[in-house]
């Protein structure tokens, strides 16, 4: 159950209609692809067909989605403004994917320090304490997860350029 169950109840939120319309469009697209994207196997029992559960899911999405869209039909305020906020979130998605892309190149440690510092500047911190704090946090995360817990994150291509002993140390710990 969610927080909103008690806290906000049924209050209409800006963008609700746009989201409901997008959801129904996506559901209808999936429904149109049911035959092409699943195997019906008519010889087998209905419940055993590979297409049965996707059909349950997509039919449910469409039915509930249409009813939800109907319920939201009068909620037309603030949709465009809210869509802009959703687009702002896409910027941080790009930041995250850039971080993902750069880790195998410059290594987990450098990438994390750079990502934490630059992102803290991007979100508005202009003084040293929060930027250094974010960088220190990045260092601690690398230390705890990579050096102590040995989670599987490959070494950066840049480590190949280091002398063998240091390179191995960096691959194992950072």
């Amino acid at each position, binding site marked *: *159950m*969610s927080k909103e169950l*008690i806290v906000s109840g049924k209050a209409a939120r800006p963008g609700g209609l746009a989201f409901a319309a997008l959801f129904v469009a996506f559901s209808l697209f999936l429904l149109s692809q049911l035959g092409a*994207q*699943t195997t019906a196997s008519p010889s087998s029992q209905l419940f*055993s067909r590979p297409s*049965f559960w996707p059909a349950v899911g997509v039919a449910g999405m469409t039915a509930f989605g249409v009813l939800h869209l109907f319920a939201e039909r009068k909620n037309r305020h603030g949709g465009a403004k809210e869509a802009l906020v959703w687009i702002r979130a896409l910027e941080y998605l790009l930041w*995250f994917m850039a971080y993902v892309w750069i880790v195998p190149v410059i290594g987990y440690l450098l990438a994390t320090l750079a990502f934490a510092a630059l*992102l803290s500047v991007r979100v508005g*911190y202009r003084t040293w304490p929060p930027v250094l704090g974010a960088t220190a946090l990045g260092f601690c995360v690398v230390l705890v997860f990579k050096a102590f817990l040995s989670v599987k994150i490959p070494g950066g291509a840049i480590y190949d350029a280091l002398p063998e002993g240091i390179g191995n140390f960096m691959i194992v710990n950072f």
Partner: protein
Amino acid sequence: MDLLVSSLAILARWDVVAALLVGSVGGVLIGAIPGVGPAVAIAILLPATFSLDPIVGLTALLGIYGSSMYGGAIPAILINTPGTAVNALTTYEGTPMTRRGEARRALSLAYSASFCGGVFSVACLIALSPVLAKIAPMFGSREIFLAALLGIVLVILSHRGQVLAAGMTSCFGIWIGTIGLEPVKYSQRYTFGQSWLAGGVDLIVVVLGLFAISQAFLLLVEDDKFSKAEGIGGGLFAGFRELLRHKRVAAVSSSFGVAMGMIPGVGEFTAQFLSYTYAQKTSEAPEDFGNGSPEGLVASEAANNAVPAAAMIPLLALGIPGEALTAMMLSVFYVHSVVPGPQLFQSQLDFVVALYIALLILNVLVVAFLLVSTNQLLRVIEIPTRFLGVAILVLSFVGVYSLRNSAIDCAIAAGFGVLGFALKRLSLPIVPIILGMVLGGIMEIKLRTSMMRVDSPVDFINRPIAFILFVIILIVVGAHVRSAWLKYRIGKESSNGG
């Protein structure tokens, strides 16, 4: 006695002790920071626990789950901001108490009520374990299918005012769970010819996206929020004495927590709602509720903290998670090839009891920690929210990337992050997506297995437990349809009259 000894032997390891400490202290810290919450923390830590023994990983995760609500009460009482979503009701009573200079009393009472709920819940579970060990084997494929179906139905219907949205997100979860190779005939489902979709969409990737990355996006996009809490003077033991004056409310609320925790898809909010309503209706001063009533605070916190241990029942006994956090824990079992369900109670009851004892120890550790460190904990409340967003995004990367070193997993998680962000902005429910994914997968397998053994649909419910579950589903759905119809008629009559 032998069972107790062998259960304690499972826990008598340094790594388990470390997990207990990390889970209890970490959970309190995470709970005390508004905007993070146990779901985000567990989602991030989940892949790191895969390399640990199941008892170690589960103890740490259970610790975070169980202790976060203790920590969540601190900002709820002191700055009117619930640390975790389930502490929302605590603000109704805690904040007015703080305003009239009773912050220490409110915190002390919240800790003692939470401790009461937590310990009561574990005691119930230990007492119930032998019974569960007898009942659980009566659940065959069709009973587990019906229990999972009941879970889905309850998840949808318990989102009052948002039933349609919960229905569509549940079905979305069911659909996501079907993407990839179908488990029996190995045909492709909704892969659109993409090889990276053939393995399906990993639950952890979805969980991290919907809970952690979406929360980071939310914190980064919104304005920075700074909170400041005043320090607390004096000791915090007095609440344990005061709790004795509210023992009836504490006992009933804890019982509601246990009962609601055991039912898949229900959980803390319903337990809190029922406990709070009970406390108000039976109180000698119902007018104080909402204005700083100690009874209301006890009801809210005792019910909350009784849920985590009880929520493990459907997971351990039937392999059915009742909410998002236990759904995440299910993956820890699967990674270690420990299959929760009826056989676990028969073959590894000592493991189950060890988990309960770990929960009991956790409650003691958490209270001890809080009694000496509440003033120091107030510092974490002051962390600016955008800084938290940066931290969550950095931590989310470890969670997703360490699974398979896959950039595609990261892209999928980020995509679900945007979806979760939109859902959170719209106040639409997210948890049904996770439960749809998990319960949908269970239902597909169990329905297929059980239908092979029945000749007609009526045979499906010819066993007592199956029949009872079927009747409960009918009653729950029927009652909801009836109440929706009555509401519609009343609305229509009032609009005609007006």
